[in-house]
């Protein structure tokens, strides 16, 4: 029973000081605690440059080597001009050539690599283990360069696209073959700058940086890189999470008419009470940007884990008199590392996503339970509390699949241990949940309590597995347990060691139904600069923390996920939720948007944030339902459940100081509304699981911006209020208190069926709809088929054998299509073909189930599941019956309810009990 009761003799004189702490804790985001661009020397320098002000580089010795284009980049002028007056550091750089290498991969991916030559005093860091290991196998072997014009070389990129290397000044352009229309360009504004490593010359030269009492020794001096990227034919750019924003498209951060703004910052930080709209960097970083316009979709990814700042320049930034149309210029700045950048071009935006996940990996296929509803709180206090919450869900017939335990379950924040008073029988507790098909998640963070009697710390310190500080000692920082050290997860050996800690033998009290949550892995260091690790801390291979900071959480997530994989002998799909992330994190589990707040604006911002994560590979993501900080009004909580039920990752969570908010604590009416919202998710689980399968194969996210499905509809390009779940379902959030009506834009080209009443709406129009408290507006796109399971259970586990419902929304030509993917929901047997994959096609009054499981794969997943109901929207009345082949069986057709809810009217044409097996081929004719 935590209570801030007194324990020791007081120091009354400290009262004012402590009051000060108290009140400063009460105020929100601490802007001053974090660096802005002006306080960040590399950013300030780079941002101060004007177009073409950087001494240009020219390309020399261009050739093809090993199937790639290689060249040297030399300064056009022998010495830098002293024009960079404000920049004393850079005017003494000795000119050394940079090495350039351009390679091309299958599917239209261009990779640009620029690094210093071998004479550099130190090897610059290249982020390992992010790109897929088989990437090299997919490299295209370039064999020749052509010279379309003097001073440039071009080469093949993909069908319809080529790349052009402009020699002097150095520039790269990706363009359409034939028309020569540019798509992406690098350094077309001459902002490329590469601070080469150099020896510290004079003792008086101070390379150190200071920020709020923290000193960064910066032993290797300035080494930043910056350049400009232009997206041609773009109306908007998207991506580069994680920032809190109510806008889906990235707003310009500089240029005419742009109010003063910081650049978008990519620096993984634990930000207390973050704002709902800010370019400020949050918990994770993915340096991947997409552009979209009516004519073109493209993407750019910079594999670099150092602090990055990105400016999106408003039209006219370079020349206010002649603002560029159809082009968005961006400036990318990083503190360290090399240029290892990827250019993606596609005919439509989904191509760009496929290309990006083609190099960083597609999202892992989650276990089915993980796609269901999660119940979390900091903290479920003890075993009785866990049992009571579990029983509460049963008592109120609200399904849930996972109960979470936050840091208080441990013995003094020593992860892998249990508080023996509060949780004396953890295995029994998990067993009780597992008996109802439910799972548990416990938290394991990367900070290790510096306590010699703690076996993890003992081993880690004896083996030298901790990150070192600038002086070479184990880095000692403050986090939940107090004085803590941090595992050096950059080292594969340490990751292996860490993974072993998750075995049932090592993690005492764990059972096969227990999964893991990685929090604080930015890493969060309470007494570190910007609440994180000093940049001059040293990792494996003499890598500085500044060079890999943004990937630290990624490696930790990876190690934990591999631990669960090992634990299950490679058979059980891991589930690990992480707060920090980097490009490629999608291969290791889910993420969430961190410590949000229980207010309407945070509810609104959750949608652009999750959509952005989905666009950059992290499809398995969600926001804390209800808001982490603060107490939501019941109406906000209900609206959050109604929206959160459509997040790919659906979890309610709350700060320990908030009032309890299990779904049944707000009166019968609100309990019913939340139950309904959770039921909606459970009934759509077959659809979601099918979408997760699609994501794991193609990288196309589960939750999608409208323009991903309707790339030609300009109205959708910056819609961050509504979203698609897969290709078939449109969801509009309600973000205001007591909202009575909402304007919903339904994309053009299709009509739409309101899923509450079956009413059809025209596409390409904004509809003003009345809003009730019952639900948020959802629409099924005409021409699609959604598989559902309308029987409700305690958890997803009990739904395995339940029959399906198909909801068929017919388009103008009375046709529709949809898919269903089913496997065991748990193992990797699907990789050997143990799954069912069907396409349902409705045309000419005939529904056909087609097998799309590739025959050559073999394998089979047995299922006796049948379809118990088929609902047809948009079918003219007059249908009498249905005839099923094979067998020439008949089924009744009648009017039935669209959803099985009390009070819903029977106005949808329903095929009653066709009872066809989902595993079989069949046709069903409507007569």
């Amino acid at each position, binding site marked *: 029973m935590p209570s801030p009761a007194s*324990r020791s003799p007081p120091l*009354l004189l400290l009262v004012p000081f402590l009051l*000060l702490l108290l*009140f400063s804790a009460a105020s929100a985001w601490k802007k001053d605690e974090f660096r802005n661009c002006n306080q960040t020397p590399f950013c300030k320098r780079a941002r101060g440059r004007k177009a073409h002000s950087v001494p240009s580089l020219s390309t020399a010795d261009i050739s093809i080597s090993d199937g790639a284009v290689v060249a040297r980049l030399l300064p056009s002028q022998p010495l830098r001009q002293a024009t960079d007056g404000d920049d004393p550091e850079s005017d003494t750089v000795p000119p050394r050539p940079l090495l350039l290498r351009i390679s091309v991969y299958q599917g239209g991916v261009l990779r640009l690599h620029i690094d210093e030559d071998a004479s550099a005093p130190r090897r610059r860091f290249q982020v390992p283990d992010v790109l897929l290991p088989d990437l090299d196998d997919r490299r295209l072997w370039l064999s020749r360069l052509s010279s379309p014009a003097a001073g440039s070389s071009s080469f093949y990129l993909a069908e319809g696209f080529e790349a052009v290397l402009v020699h002097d000044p150095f520039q790269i352009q990706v363009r359409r073959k034939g028309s020569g229309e540019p798509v992406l360009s690098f350094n077309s504004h001459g902002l490329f700058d590469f601070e080469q490593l150099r020896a510290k010359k004079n003792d008086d030269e101070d390379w150190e940086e200071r920020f709020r009492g923290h000193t960064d020794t910066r032993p290797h001096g300035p080494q930043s890189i910056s350049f400009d990227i232009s997206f041609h034919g773009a109306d908007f750019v998207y991506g580069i999470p994680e920032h809190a924003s109510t806008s889906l498209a990235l707003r310009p951060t500089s240029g005419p008419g742009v109010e003063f703004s910081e650049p978008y910052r990519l620096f993984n930080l634990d930000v207390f009470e973050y704002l709902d709209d800010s370019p400020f960097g949050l918990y994770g970083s993915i340096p991947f940007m997409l552009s979209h316009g009516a004519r073109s979709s493209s993407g750019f990814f910079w594999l670099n884990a150092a602090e990055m700042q990105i400016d999106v320049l408003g039209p006219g930034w370079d020349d206010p008199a002649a603002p560029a149309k159809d082009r968005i210029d961006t400036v990318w700045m990083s503190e360290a590392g090399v240029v290892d950048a990827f250019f993606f071009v596609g005919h439509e935006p989904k191509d760009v996503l496929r290309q990006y996940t083609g190099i960083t990996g597609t999202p892992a296929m989650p276990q089915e339970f993980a796609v269901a509803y999660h119940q979390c709180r900091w903290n479920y206090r003890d075993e009785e509390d866990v049992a009571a919450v579990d029983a509460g869900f049963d008592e109120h017939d609200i399904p849930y699949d996972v109960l979470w335990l936050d840091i208080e379950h441990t013995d003094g924040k020593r992860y892998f241990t249990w508080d023996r008073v509060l949780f004396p029988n953890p295995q029994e507790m998990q067993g009780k949940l597992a008996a109802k098909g439910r799972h548990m998640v416990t938290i394991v963070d990367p900070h290790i309590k510096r306590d010699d009697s703690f076996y993890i710390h003992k081993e880690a310190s004896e083996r030298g597995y901790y990150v070192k500080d600038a002086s070479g000692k184990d880095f000692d920082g403050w*986090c939940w347990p107090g004085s803590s050290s941090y595992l050096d997860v950059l080292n594969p050996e340490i990751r292996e060691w860490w993974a072993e800690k998750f075995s049932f033998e090592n993690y005492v009290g764990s059972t096969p139904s227990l999964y893991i949550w990685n929090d604080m892995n930015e890493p969060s260091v309470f007494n570190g600069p910007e609440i994180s690790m000093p940049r001059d801390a040293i990792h494996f291979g003499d890598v500085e923390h500044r060079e890999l900071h943004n990937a630290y959480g990624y490696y930790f997530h990876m190690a934990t996920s591999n631990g669960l994989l090992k634990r299950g002998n490679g058979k059980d799909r891991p589930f690990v939720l992480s707060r920090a992330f980097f490009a490629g994190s999608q291969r290791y589990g889910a993420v969430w948007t961190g410590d949000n707040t229980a207010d309407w604006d945070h509810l609104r911002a959750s949608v652009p944030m999750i959509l952005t994560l989905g666009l950059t590979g992290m499809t398995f993501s969600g926001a804390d339902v209800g808001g982490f900080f603060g107490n939501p009004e019941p109406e906000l909580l209900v609206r959050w459940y109604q929206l959160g039920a459509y997040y790919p990752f659906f979890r309610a969570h709350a700060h320990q100081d908030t009032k309890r908010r299990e779904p049944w604590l707000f009166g019968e009416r609100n309990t019913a509304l939340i139950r309904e919202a959770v039921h909606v998710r459970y009934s759509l689980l077959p659809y979601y699981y099918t979408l997760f399968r699609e994501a794991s194969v193609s990288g196309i996210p589960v939750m999608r911006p409208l323009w991903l499905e309707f790339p030609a509809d300009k109205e959708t390009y910056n819609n961050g209020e509504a979203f698609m779940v897969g290709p078939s379902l449109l969801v509009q959030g309600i973000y205001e208190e007591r909202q009575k009506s909402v304007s919903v834009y339904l994309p053009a080209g299709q009509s739409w069926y309101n899923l509450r009443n079956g009413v059809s709406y025209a596409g390409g129009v904004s509809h003003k709809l009345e809003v009730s408290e019952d639900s948020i507006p959802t629409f099924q796109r005409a021409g699609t088929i959604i598989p559902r399971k309308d029987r409700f259970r305690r958890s997803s586990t009990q739904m395995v054998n339940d029959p399906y419902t198909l909801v068929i929304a017919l388009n103008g030509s009375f046709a529709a299509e949809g898919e269903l993917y089913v496997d065991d929901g748990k193992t990797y047997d699907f990789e050997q073909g143990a799954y069912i994959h069907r396409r349902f096609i409705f045309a000419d009054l005939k529904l056909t189930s087609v097998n799309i499981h590739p025959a050559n794969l073999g394998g089979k997943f047995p299922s006796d599941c049948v379809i118990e109901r088929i609902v047809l929207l948009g079918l003219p009345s007059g249908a009498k019956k249905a005839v099923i082949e094979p067998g020439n069986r008949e089924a009744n057709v009648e009017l039935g309810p669209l959803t099985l809810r009390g009070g819903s009217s029977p106005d949808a044409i329903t095929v009653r009990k066709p009872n066809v097996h989902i595993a079989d081929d069949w046709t069903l004719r409507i007569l």
Partner: protein
Amino acid sequence: MGACLRISLTISCLLLIWISASASIPSRESLGIAPQDLSYYKSDVIKCKDGSKKFTKEQLNDEFCDCPDGTDEPGTSACPQGKFYCPNVGHIPLTTFSSRVNDGICDCCDGSDEYNGNVSCPNTCWEAGKVAREKLQKKIATFQNGVTIRKQEVEKAKQAFAKDEAELSKLRSEEKILKELVQKLKEQKERIEKAEEEERKKREEEERRLKEAERKANESKNAPEESSHDITDQAPEKLSELHNQDAMEDHHDSAVEDKNDYTTGTEISDNQVANDHDDTIAKSGHEADGRSDGSSFSHVEKQHVVEAQDNAVSKANTDYPGTEEELSSHVAEQGQVSDSTEGLSREELGRLVASRWTRENAAEGNDEVNMAKEGLEHDEDIREENHDGYISDSDEDHKFEDDDLEDDQDAEFGEDHEEPTGAYSSDEDDKTDYSDLTVSGSSSWLDKIQQTVNNVLQAFNFFRRPVNISEAATVRKEYDDFSSELSKIQSRISRLNEKLKYDFGKDREFYSFYDRCFESKQNKYTYKVCPFKKASQVEGHSSTQLGHWDKFDESYRVMLFSNGDRCWNGPDRSLKVRLRCGLKNELVDIDEPSRCEYVAILSTPALCLEEKIKELQQKLEDMNTGQPSAHDEL
């Protein structure tokens, strides 16, 4: 061989279970339907209960949901809003959600919810029912005994209430008489003072005259002689003593109420010391038999305690004068300036940042703010108790004076010896104080007083000069004594008034709770619940207020305490005490399900209601009648 035998045994067991399970499954038409509902399903065409549709008998339990409200599928999982009835013969029938039907988990003890063969559920109703019946029987027994105790309690409460009312009316008449007497004494005293004053003036005049004469004489002769100084000085001295006492009380009040101005007493700035003092006082208070010396000692000492705590607060307040909001904004401003964390050690910084999430103090073990808050709290308490202008001698410390109370309590509530140690009387009203007035036999003491006063008044001879000093002192002493007794009576009256305005339940069954506290120890905390007063969480020397008495709720099944100490950025602490029937008044469980919102269970005979027994007996009867004879052998 052995294995074979075991297997065949298992098979036959399973077979048995299967038979018994399948035997208990009703036909499709009645599956999952409660007996009282069977008639609804009799006709060939049946209406959905929500009126949305009709369905045929063939559609009943045909694994397809026709009525969204579940009318047509009481026995299957087809309708999400359906309800399934399991007869649970031998135990209590259960109506559960359709979502439990054939989900692979045994929910009904008769196994009737799992009939599709995926899982076999043994019939456990008889065993479970036996346990449940025994439990229910025990409960009934508790209620039956509880009802008896409750009746006694109600009777005692009735008497106690009558007694209190009688006492109140008696006190009122006594107050009236005493007031008159005090008035008389006051007049007498004033007259004496006046006489003394006159006498003094006269003497001064005389002295002046004498001195004048002497001076004159001295001018010729120089041998001055001391006059009888001793006598003349004594009276004024006494007077000033009295004044001093008044001043002290005044000062005391102002110290409490006007803490901003209070600046002395800095030497006792350590709360630990203050608390230790408290302890000493409690002990000494306890040991002291009478009230006179001991209590005045403790009175003064306690004053110091308050001052010390006060002082801490006033320090904070002098630094940041103004209301709490002003204070916070002030501090916030300061925070802007000194938000720079550069002056902090690395550990302090770590704690400071961690505290944003935990809302706890940044430094380990420094709960100073809380202590200061406690100071405030004490302060408030005192102010509250001061509302009748009388500083009560009763303090929390006296709560533990069990000896004292038992005399009291024994007389009024004879059964208190049986109470568990967790419950004890609170003794906030100064009954003990007052008892020395009442024990002597109430009818006669007023007479005696009147007698005494008259004697005093008569004994004093105004016409005797000089004023008889010992007689004047007697008048003064009598005046002081009686006015103090008057204020004690007034205080007692106001306390009784205070008490009697509470709602003590339908039968005043909670009357005895007024003077009681219930205690429960959980881990390092001791929880004290004092109905009609307050509830607190005590750890060592520090105490956190969980709430002040608010009211009964849910028709006397819940006691609410609200407006307790403030939580860090959270709500004010509050406590909800759920009452349930038990033979003893006992705080059995306390919990903090939500931050700073506490919940406790108090078992008490007061909740053992007679009407409930019938209900429970009916339930037991239902369970017994459902018992199948075949199961007796099991």
